């Protein structure tokens, strides 16, 4: 890389500034924006399943909705009850409201969606509607 400002010896910090400009370009500004929850998507012939890790969240605090082919998971992670006098040594967990929309490969009807929560892992199974399934065409004899 060529730093034209460096050729001006009167400005010793020119090269530094020029390098920092280059570095800043590679650092995304929205790095603190995180996606929660992380999801795994499972596919089969008759259904699609979405699993997500939602530790510490009561199932009643989670809202799942399906509209056409978009599945939305939203809710709130509530911070634990801690006395005010407590000292925090570590705070790695995150709390607050979250929302996540996932596009499904087909439009699902509400009665074909089933959600279950075990040990902080949410599993949503969306059945494929019959009209979306491939139809086998019989060949008639002439």
């Amino acid at each position: 890389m060529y730093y034209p400002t460096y050729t001006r010896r009167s400005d010793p910090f020119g090269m530094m500034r020029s390098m920092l400009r280059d570095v800043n370009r590679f650092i995304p500004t929205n790095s603190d924006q995180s996606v929660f929850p992380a999801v795994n998507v499972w596919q089969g012939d008759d259904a699609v399943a979405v699993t997500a890790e939602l530790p510490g969240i009561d199932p009643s605090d989670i809202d799942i909705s399906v509209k056409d082919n978009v599945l939305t998971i939203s809710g709130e992670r509530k911070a634990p009850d801690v006395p005010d006098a407590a000292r925090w040594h570590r705070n790695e967990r995150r709390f607050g409201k979250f929302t996540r929309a996932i596009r499904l490969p087909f439009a699902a009807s509400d009665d074909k969606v089933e959600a279950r929560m075990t040990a902080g892992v949410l599993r949503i199974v969306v059945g494929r509607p019959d009209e979306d399934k491939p139809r086998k065409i019989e060949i008639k004899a002439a």
Partner: protein
Amino acid sequence: MTDQMTHTPETVEKTPAQGPETMAGGRIYQPLTDIVETDEGVTLMLEMPGVSAEDVDVTLEKRVLTVRGKIQGTHPEKLQLAYAEYGEGDYERAFTLSDDFDPDKIGASVSHGVLTVTLPRAAEAQPKKIAVTGS
């Protein structure tokens, strides 16, 4: 099937633990942990999604508190993994405690995939200061 977010997800999440490999080839993760201290003792909250109460192992030996959790996989029947943002694996993490705690008094409970470990400070275990005398 694509996610609506355009950038790659940057979840603040569990990280694979450093250490020896497992025999079965599964991964081991470090659970995200909150540690809070009050006058009564220390409370640890560890995120271990997929772990039920009977699969947790908490030990305290020579001031090192080790927490292990075995997960029950979530592979749905007849379905193949098509897109993955998180990995599944057992959990393991160890902490060196600053004080001595009575291993018999440690309490542990699991609720919705979060393990809460309580280390109560016994009354007689209050720090005793030893006076150093000069000769």
